[in-house]
């Protein structure tokens, strides 16, 4: 069967569509009412050499440490150190599966570079988008490994620096054009950090052109720091009571930002004043679309077994229209809210139900187009990706384009060894389960 797309991304005018299946990026180009394949990249990095390197280094360290202790025989002669070849450890039976994700695709602000992070070597990968290359528009220009697993990426307003937030809570800024840095923490200290898993990162600019870095974490925090003077924290936006998973910076306002996560609200903030403007409660809207997927894990469940847990995966916006679109992880429904740009208040505008669960959401800002990828596990014949465009003030499916796109995708993936998998080989598509805190440690 075909593996669903974990992540989708459209460029600003909707002419390019990037999709991630496991450790592969596929690129499609718009051609009238259809899309054609125009590029691909597979993360085929073999981790064993990296592990080998680490193991050898650790062995070296231990040997020097032992040498310092000077092992001696009873007669007082020094014992030569045994020099075994370092072995690369192999996972045993029952070890958790290793996933070679590519996660969090993004585009530079000028749309000329594609950014992504890989799980295999915890690297950021940066591609030039070369539209003149007919065979493959993706040209890898840099692969920068990081010490901890990257979780979110963005670029500075001028596109010069790549800003990356990792699961350990550190944020790094690195000039994109510079050479790869080999040992990050010694040469390049983090520019900011939380003592918590970072979940999203973004940049805003005020009316005077000063830049700010927004970072969100699993401990309900949204932090706003000056940039590049990230050592000056401007403020925190307080109000979330569960982890924050996404922060969204709309282009139709210079003061509004939106955020959501494990709470039953979409939050709208005036980031400049540091005030919470509105909380939109979507719990009634989502209720009938929740399934067994949303029951709390066994050990946190109550006797009736009716504790439900859900969270918003992503919020996206369009350039000129004051709408926001979001979906709740592992549901089949997409919501559109209308935003009052002056007051920041949110109201229900539209909902669209699909045959399958939504995995990922993106928007083409300038083209008023949305894109979703769907979990086709129960429904092999269904579309993997759907494009929606605005007609009047409602989003509708682009029927023709979607059926053309479906054909293109099927032929592109048909003989692709990465995308054709057994049911039990599908990567985890819904990841926020582990983000919720259950206060397990008492002391």
């Amino acid at each position, binding site marked *: 069967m075909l593996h669903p797309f974990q992540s989708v991304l459209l460029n600003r005018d909707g002419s390019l569509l990037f999709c991630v299946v496991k450790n592969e990026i596929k690129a499609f180009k718009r051609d009238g009412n259809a899309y054609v394949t125009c590029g691909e990249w597979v993360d085929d990095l073999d981790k064993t050499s990296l592990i080998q390197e680490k193991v050898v280094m650790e062995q070296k360290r231990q040997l020097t440490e032992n040498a310092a202790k000077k092992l001696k025989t009873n007669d007082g002669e020094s014992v030569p150190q045994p020099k075994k070849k370092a072995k690369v450890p192999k996972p045993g039976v029952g070890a958790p599966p290793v996933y070679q994700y590519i996660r969090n695709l993004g585009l530079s602000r000028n749309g000329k570079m594609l950014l992504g992070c890989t799980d295999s070597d915890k690297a950021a990968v940066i591609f030039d988008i070369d539209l003149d290359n007919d065979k493959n528009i993706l040209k890898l220009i840099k692969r920068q490994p990081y010490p901890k697993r990257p979780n979110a990426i963005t670029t500075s307003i001028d596109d010069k620096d790549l800003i990356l937030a990792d699961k350990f809570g*550190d944020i790094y800024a690195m000039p994109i054009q510079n050479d790869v840095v080999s040992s990050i923490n010694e040469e390049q200290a*983090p520019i*900011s950090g*939380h003592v918590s898993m970072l979940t999203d990162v973004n940049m805003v600019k005020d009316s005077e052109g000063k830049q700010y870095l927004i970072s969100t974490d699993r*401990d309900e925090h949204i932090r706003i720091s000056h940039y590049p003077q990230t050592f000056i924290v401007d403020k925190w936006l307080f109000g979330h009571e569960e982890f924050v998973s996404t922060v969204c910076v709309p282009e139709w306002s210079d003061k509004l930002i939106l955020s959501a996560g494990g709470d039953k609200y979409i939050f709208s903030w005036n980031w400049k004043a540091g005030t919470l403007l509105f909380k939109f409660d979507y719990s009634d809207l989502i209720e009938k679309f929740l399934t067994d997927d949303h029951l709390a894990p066994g050990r946190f469940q109550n006797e009736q077994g009716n504790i439900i847990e859900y969270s918003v995966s992503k919020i996206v916006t369009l350039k000129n229209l004051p709408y926001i679109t979001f979906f709740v992880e592992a549901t089949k429904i997409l919501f559109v809210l209308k935003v009052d740009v002056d007051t920041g208040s949110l109201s229900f505008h539209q909902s669209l139900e699909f045959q399958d669960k939504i995995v990922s959401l993106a928007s083409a800002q300038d083209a008023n187009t949305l894109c979703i990828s769907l979990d086709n596990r129960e429904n092999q014949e269904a579309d993997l990706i759907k494009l929606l465009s605005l007609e009047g003030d409602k989003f509708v499916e682009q029927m023709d384009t979607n059926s053309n796109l479906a054909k293109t995708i099927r032929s592109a993936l048909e003989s692709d060894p990465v995308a054709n998998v057994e049911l039990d080989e599908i990567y985890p598509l819904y990841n926020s389960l582990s983000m919720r805190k259950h206060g397990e*440690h008492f002391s």
Partner: protein
Amino acid sequence: MTINTRRQTYLAEKQDHRKELKHVKIDESVIEKVDKLSLPQKRFYRQRAHSNPFSDHQLDYPISPDHMDWSKLYPHFIDSEKKELTKEVTIADIGCGYGGLMIDLSPAFPDKLILGMEIRVQVTNYVEDRIIALRTNHTKENGYQNINVLRGNAMKFLPNFFHKAQLEKIFFCFPDPHFKQRKHKARIVTSTLLSEYAYVLKEGGIIYTITDVLDLHNWMVTHLEGHPLFERLSEDWESQDKCVSIMRYATEEGKKVERNKGDKYVACFVRLPIPEII
């Protein structure tokens, strides 16, 4: 009775006291009801010295500083008409341990509110019991009304408790050294956390550090000196400051190091003004 059950009975009794007296304004009327309280005995509250600051503890913390109800902690400072606290906390002892520093700071700064934060439950309980006993035993002169303790993880949630520029002094006394290199992020002073401390400190506010581990001392000095918002204060300044001498001799760790004739390394830093934003 075995040691264990004796410990349990002792702790249960103390817990009852704590529940009853924790948030009460202790004055003559309360005193008639309870006899003079004995100070808690440390041996019943032992807990291992380390706590993982990254794990999800069962913690209580306010959604924001505005949600924090301080009046429960400092009932003596409530304005009886407005039902509000007359002042806010301006001195914080992060990782206050058994509370020795606060107990000496209390009479030295009678008009300041002082808060200790400690991540270990048993140790926090000890400090609470100690403060209840001290307040009860010094009712006449209203002693120890300006100190209290909270169980919390300051590395994660400090900005949930304090507003921007609220604090005048922050103490880090004998923090966990986290010797292993891979544990260095768990240290209480890191360049990324210093930005948070700079946020809650007002301009001219002071960070006090003391440790008996030279390696950690050098680490803290390097990171604080490397941070654009902090500047080290001179030894001359240290010798004039009353907090420095309290810090050297008042804390439990300080006394222990003194008994063992160990070294104590002190470093103090002033919070600089915010530079021009570029």
